């Protein structure tokens, strides 16, 4: 294995771990060895088995085979409580606070000391947390951070973070990375799962790569190692294309007389104020914002799932009033929510989930044309490369594959306008490329896309224009040519364009170098 690792004995050492779900082998032969004081990346495509491994290590599920050593001793961790006692603290891919209990009770339940927790929460960039808030009412991103703070508060030996940053906006993600970095410096070990190479290269010392449930390699993170990791992950090379820039010809074709959607002075309660912009046919407009700046409300209002308290939305020049998402869908506007649990019927099959919008309207309640449906659905599945090994129930798919199903639904339904709220959350590099291509293709076919992303890098890759929202107001709109990452970061913080201020470790040129430059 690696040379730098030889002197120290590993804190955690797992070998030959396997796990089957009926006919599906989630893990076949996974191994992972983590040294004290290192931040260790666990990488792999969607469905490679990363989450499964984390669950096994922390006792949430039992492996069928394998050996786990903690500080050189064989341990059989049979429950999360036992894992906790052994010093292994996870943050799972799905929030694990009890939804109906307030934060304080959640802390009591796990025996977490309150003061350290509070300190960590503050450290992680959440200033105004009320411990009496019920977990259900807390936004997903904050919930993830609380999950992390709860784990940090008991000072674990090994911290396992499963796509911790996937649902986080840039500012919170930054804080998380800083904190994790310091954990490593303090001599503790962190296992860090992420699909974002920028983070991996900024943070991690080594990476273990999984493919189809098997460990295929352990590499040191050095500049330029990205290629190799991707090759290990996918088994092949992929070409990372820069899809954004529209060709001149394309631009000439789409000079529409009137915008597809025109938003004027839109207001939603106190969260969103006087937002006006156009969305044209054949364009991908990116929305850039930090956590909770009103982008959720903007998308929900456009999707018809909440009613704006003021302003107008015009679709194709006609004023629209959306009382229910069906109204928006009739107008050809489809919404892919960021939180997949909001979009999926978890116990139903992939097929039924994708075909759901087909039966929504009263006139489609009759018999289904099964063959036609199957063809459409298969087309969408192929387009998004959904791993359908466990397609009988969506809840058995890996997180990334679930995310893909939410997008596939509207590809199958052929919506004219798609509102994508962080669609690449938790999606592996290979498929991300596909999604970028897909969005561009949609635009090429004259469709329009409104695209919020928490990964600023993506803006350059897919968008034509950038819409910046800060504090519930639209602060800037500019073409993608002017949108390099530092510029976007500054804009997201509400700083005027052209101002020079350094924000966050990711904006530092040396950190973003290996991942961000295509």
């Amino acid at each position, binding site marked *: 294995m690696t040379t730098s690792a030889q002197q120290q004995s590993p804190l955690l050492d797992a070998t030959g771990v396997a796990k*089957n*779900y*009926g*006919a599906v082998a989630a893990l076949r032969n996974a191994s992972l060895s983590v040294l004290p004081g290192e931040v260790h990346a666990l990488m792999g495509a969607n469905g490679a088995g990363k989450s499964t491994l984390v669950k096994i290590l922390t006792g*949430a*599920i*039992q492996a*069928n085979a394998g050996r786990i050593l903690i500080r050189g001793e064989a341990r059989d961790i049979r429950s999360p409580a036992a894992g906790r006692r052994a010093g292994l603290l996870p943050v799972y891919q799905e929030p694990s606070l009890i939804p109906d209990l307030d934060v304080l009770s959640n802390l009591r339940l796990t025996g977490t000391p309150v003061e350290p927790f509070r300190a960590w929460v503050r450290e992680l960039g959440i200033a105004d947390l009320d411990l009496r808030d019920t977990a259900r009412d807390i936004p997903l991103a904050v919930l993830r951070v609380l999950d992390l703070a709860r784990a940090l508060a008991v000072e674990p030996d090994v911290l396992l973070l499963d796509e911790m940053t996937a649902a986080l906006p840039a500012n919170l993600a930054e804080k998380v990375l800083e904190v994790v970095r310091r954990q490593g410096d303090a001599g503790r070990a962190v296992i860090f799962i992420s699909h974002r190479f920028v983070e991996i290269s900024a943070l991690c010392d080594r990476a273990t790569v999984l493919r189809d449930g098997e460990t295929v390699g352990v590499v040191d993170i050095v500049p330029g190692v990205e290629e190799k990791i991707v090759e290990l992950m996918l088994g092949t090379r992929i070409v990372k294309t820069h899809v954004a820039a529209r060709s001149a010809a394309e631009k000439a074709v789409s000079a529409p007389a009137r915008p597809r959607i025109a938003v004027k002075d839109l207001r939603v309660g106190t969260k969103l104020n006087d937002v006006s912009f156009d969305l044209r046919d054949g364009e991908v407009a990116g929305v850039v914002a930090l956590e909770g700046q009103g982008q959720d409300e903007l998308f929900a209002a456009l*999707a018809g*799932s909440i009613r704006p308290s003021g302003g107008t939305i015009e679709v194709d020049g006609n004023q629209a009033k959306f009382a*229910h*998402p*069906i109204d928006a*869908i*009739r107008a050809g506007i489809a*919404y892919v*929510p960021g939180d997949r*649990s*909001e*979009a*999926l*019927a*978890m*116990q*139903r099959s992939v097929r*039924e989930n994708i*075909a*759901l*919008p*087909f*039966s*929504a*309207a*009263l006139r*489609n*309640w*009759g*018999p*289904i044309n*099964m063959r036609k449906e199957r063809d459409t659905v298969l087309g969408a599945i192929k387009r998004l490369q959904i791993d359908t090994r466990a397609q009988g129930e969506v809840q058995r798919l890996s997180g990334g594959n679930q995310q893909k199903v939410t997008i596939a*639904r509207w590809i199958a339904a052929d919506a004219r306008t798609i509102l994508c709220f962080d669609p690449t959350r938790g999606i592996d590099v290979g498929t991300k490329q596909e999604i970028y291509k897909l969005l561009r293709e949609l635009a090429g076919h004259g469709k329009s896309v409104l695209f919020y992303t928490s990964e600023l890098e993506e803006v350059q890759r897919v968008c034509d224009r950038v819409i910046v929202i800060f504090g519930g107001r639209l602060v800037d709109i500019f073409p993608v040519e002017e949108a390099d990452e530092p510029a976007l970061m500054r804009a997201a913080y509400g700083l005027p364009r052209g101002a020079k201020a350094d924000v966050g470790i990711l904006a530092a040129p040396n950190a973003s170098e290996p991942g961000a430059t295509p």
Partner: protein
Amino acid sequence: MSTSAITPVPFGRRIKRFMADRPLVPLIILLVILVVILQILRPGIVNERWIANTIKFAIPLAILAGCQTMTMLTGGIDLSVGTVATMSAFIMATQIVNQDPAIAFLLAMMPAVLIGLVNGIGVGVFRVHPLIMTLGTSLIGTGCLQVYQRTVIASGAKIPDFLAWLGTGVTPIVGFAFPNALLLFVPLAALIVFTLARTGFGRLLYAVGDNERATRLSGVQYWQVITALYVTSSVLAGITGLLYIGLIKAPSLSLAEPLVLPSVAAAVIGGTSIFGGRGGYTGTIIGALILTVLTTLLTILQMPEGARRILFGLIVLFVTAAYLRIVEER
């Protein structure tokens, strides 16, 4: 949820997989085992007449259990089916005395539609919990029926010949006595199964029960689905009432009430989840048959009533547990 450990069983694994893919098979096997036990306890009891009788009694239960299956798929339950069935049966039996049969039928189905509509609007629009809503309408219905009873006490009641024929009659086909009720039940069951599996409405029932927010975002209007569902359920219950009065032949104010809890049980035994999103009607039919056979099994045993009930409870538990063991692959 895959929280428990799995230990692969190499032996018999294939058979298990086979059964897990076809959950009906083990259910039918359990049914057959019950029948065999019955035959051993009372040699000769399982004959043509007994089979026809069992089917006759299982059908009303199976239809009501169909109401429960459909409502349970959406995470609901319909406790008003007993009252609705009783109402339409009672109204039919009393109105037929001096009304045209067609009119009597319409009058009998009216409260069913009405209660279904109220249930649907209450649950779908006002978001009242289905259990409370249907319990409430069932109380209201019972009260109305009692008031109604006093207005018709003078005119008496009779069972229409057609319903008696449908409820109790048998038709010999190729030497076997087929209960006439099958004429009603087979198409009805086929329709329910088809609706659940192959129509947009059926899809929506599952989806709504699984994740209502997701269906909303896909453009589904909850109240439409729920209203249509509860009206359907009530109409089915009304039809069951008519069939049941032909079978029991004694109109009373609590005619179909004893069928309510068993109808829920039949659906659950048949593999439908009360939390919604999971299940189907074929399992429910077998569930209803199992419960009916069980009842006869216990009536022939010479035991005190108490012991008989204990045995009934234990067998229901055992059957369901065995079924789950076989079907569960995790």
